[in-house]
């Protein structure tokens, strides 16, 4: 018997629990020659804002031991250009499309974006990115001025999620930051405010310096760390959140193959997302899907759901 791979994220049914993470898969068109897109569980697109955004000055990326730093600064064409230029291709891919959004100003921009996307039928879900470390957060949310992220404050998280919840009937996913003392506390705030699911984690804030020139390797000085280097931290956070919330978790952070994907399922993730690994082997996500089928068959497990949170203690 073929094991059942499908899972639900809010109202959204995924054929399989393996998706690709925001910012690491462009708008999918860039990968069409390299990946059989229709095999993916879902595609999460690069975070968009209401208006076009230029992003940060280069250099924007550098490699670090078993990881990388990035400070793209959310370069994107803005929501209207996105809908006109990028969505038509995404639609053709035949898999659920999850649109990641953020605000450059305040809660109102989140609400405007969510309302705008709510009416677009080809969009399956909205992910709110309240955890990008690469934009200066000058939001009008009083608690988040300066460089604080919304996802670093449970009350601000609650406020934003609640406002977006009111603006859309689509499945709502909140993306959390690992740069916090207690991620479970933030997760609970998002759940209480009506988020249907949680994506975790975004990147860890880091730095790298060229000792020869004494210059930072990234122009924006600090940047987000991703890749296998952050996997143990991300996994621990997945487990912590799983014990405290009922809504599904989309786990990510350094997943590169089937065994690292399984770690996240076992620690409570209903679905997983592949990020940095797309750069190294664009077929990582589809290889994980085949790996998952094999693993379940070999272990005589009929339904994927049986391994979620099944950490043997």
């Amino acid at each position, binding site marked *: 018997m073929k094991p059942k791979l499908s899972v639900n994220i809010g109202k959204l049914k995924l054929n399989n629990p393996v998706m690709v993470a925001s910012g*690491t898969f*462009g708008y999918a068109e860039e*990968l069409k*020659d390299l990946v059989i897109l229709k095999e993916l569980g879902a595609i999460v697109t690069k975070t968009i804002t209401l208006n076009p955004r*230029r992003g940060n000055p280069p250099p924007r990326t550098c490699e670090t031991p078993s990881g990388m730093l990035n400070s793209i600064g959310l370069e994107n064409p803005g929501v209207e250009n996105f809908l006109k230029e990028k969505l038509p291709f995404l639609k053709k891919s035949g898999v659920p499309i999850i649109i990641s959004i953020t605000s450059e100003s305040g809660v109102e921009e989140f609400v405007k974006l969510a309302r705008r996307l709510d009416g677009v039928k080809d969009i399956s879900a909205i992910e709110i990115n309240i955890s990008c470390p690469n934009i200066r957060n000058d939001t009008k949310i009083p608690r988040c001025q300066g460089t604080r992220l919304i996802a670093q404050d449970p009350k601000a998280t609650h406020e934003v999620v609640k406002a977006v919840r009111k603006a859309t009937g689509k499945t709502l996913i909140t993306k959390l930051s690992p740069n916090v003392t207690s991620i479970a506390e933030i997760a609970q705030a998002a759940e209480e405010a009506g988020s249907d699911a949680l994506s975790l984690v975004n990147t860890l804030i880091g730095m790298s310096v060229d000792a020869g020139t004494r210059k930072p390797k990234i122009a924006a000085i600090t940047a987000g760390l991703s*890749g296998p280097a952050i996997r143990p931290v991300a996994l621990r956070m997945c487990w912590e959140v799983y014990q405290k919330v009922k809504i599904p978790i989309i786990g990510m952070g350094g997943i590169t193959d089937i065994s690292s994907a399984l770690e996240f399922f076992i620690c409570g993730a209903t679905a997983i997302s592949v990020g940095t690994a797309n750069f190294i*082997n*664009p*077929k990582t996500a589809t290889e994980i899907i085949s790996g998952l089928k094999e693993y379940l068959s070999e272990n005589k497990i009929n339904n994927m759901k049986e391994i979620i949170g099944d950490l043997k203690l």
Partner: protein
Amino acid sequence: MPQIKAKIVYNKKVKENYWCCVFNAPEVVKKASPGQFLNIRVEDKELLLRRPFSIHGIQGSGLGIIYEVLGKGTKYLSRRKPGEYLDIIGPLGNGFDYKTQGCQGTMVPVLVAGGMGVAPLFFLAEKLRENQNPKSKIQNVVLIGAKTKNHILCEKEFKAAGFDVRIATDDGSRGFKGYVSELLEKILSADLRHVQSASSKDAERSRGIYACGPKPMLKEICRISRKYGLSSQVSLEEHMACGIGACFGCVAETKEGYKRVCKDGPVFKADDLIW
């Protein structure tokens, strides 16, 4: 732009710290154009990102790169043996526009290479020659800049392709002493004098520059190109994560805002770049 496993047929040191690697990659060869590059996986535990290398030449189904061993990734590459396989994505990016410019006889191609910059320019040289009318009297020129006389790459190969080869070395151990961009400016100002005495107005505009090399050199080339009103194309390098346009990690500033070096480049018109 396929992702393939390419079998290495040759991988040896050329001179100093420069290596040449040839692998069998018919799928890539079919589509390759000068100025495009490959993103090669380094399957080392500690290393993560692929490393970009320009396509240096093709022969049959073989595809060659030349590279300088600088860090762990290129060291890994230099240890690979014939018979082993490399995981390659390519050809990537937009290469040189040579068909409309360099081959119609209205432009005299001048190739300007700084250091490793010869890598894509040699492939370009071969394509220019292939596409030019053999009867045309165009004398293709290449300026090669290197640290010392021991670091000059591909001189013989360019000569065999019928190029007039001019050399500049930083230490003056061969050819012009100084930067290759200075050598270019010297040649252009001599052109100008020649043109003025011959009173032919537009001859100085007839050079088309194709350049690849370190950033400061390319910046100079762009300045010179504007000063002399030339049409120039330069191939940029930027740190890359994906190499396929998906991450927006590799941007360069242009008149139309940031552009991705890996997807919109690596070759740009000099006039479009902002330094």
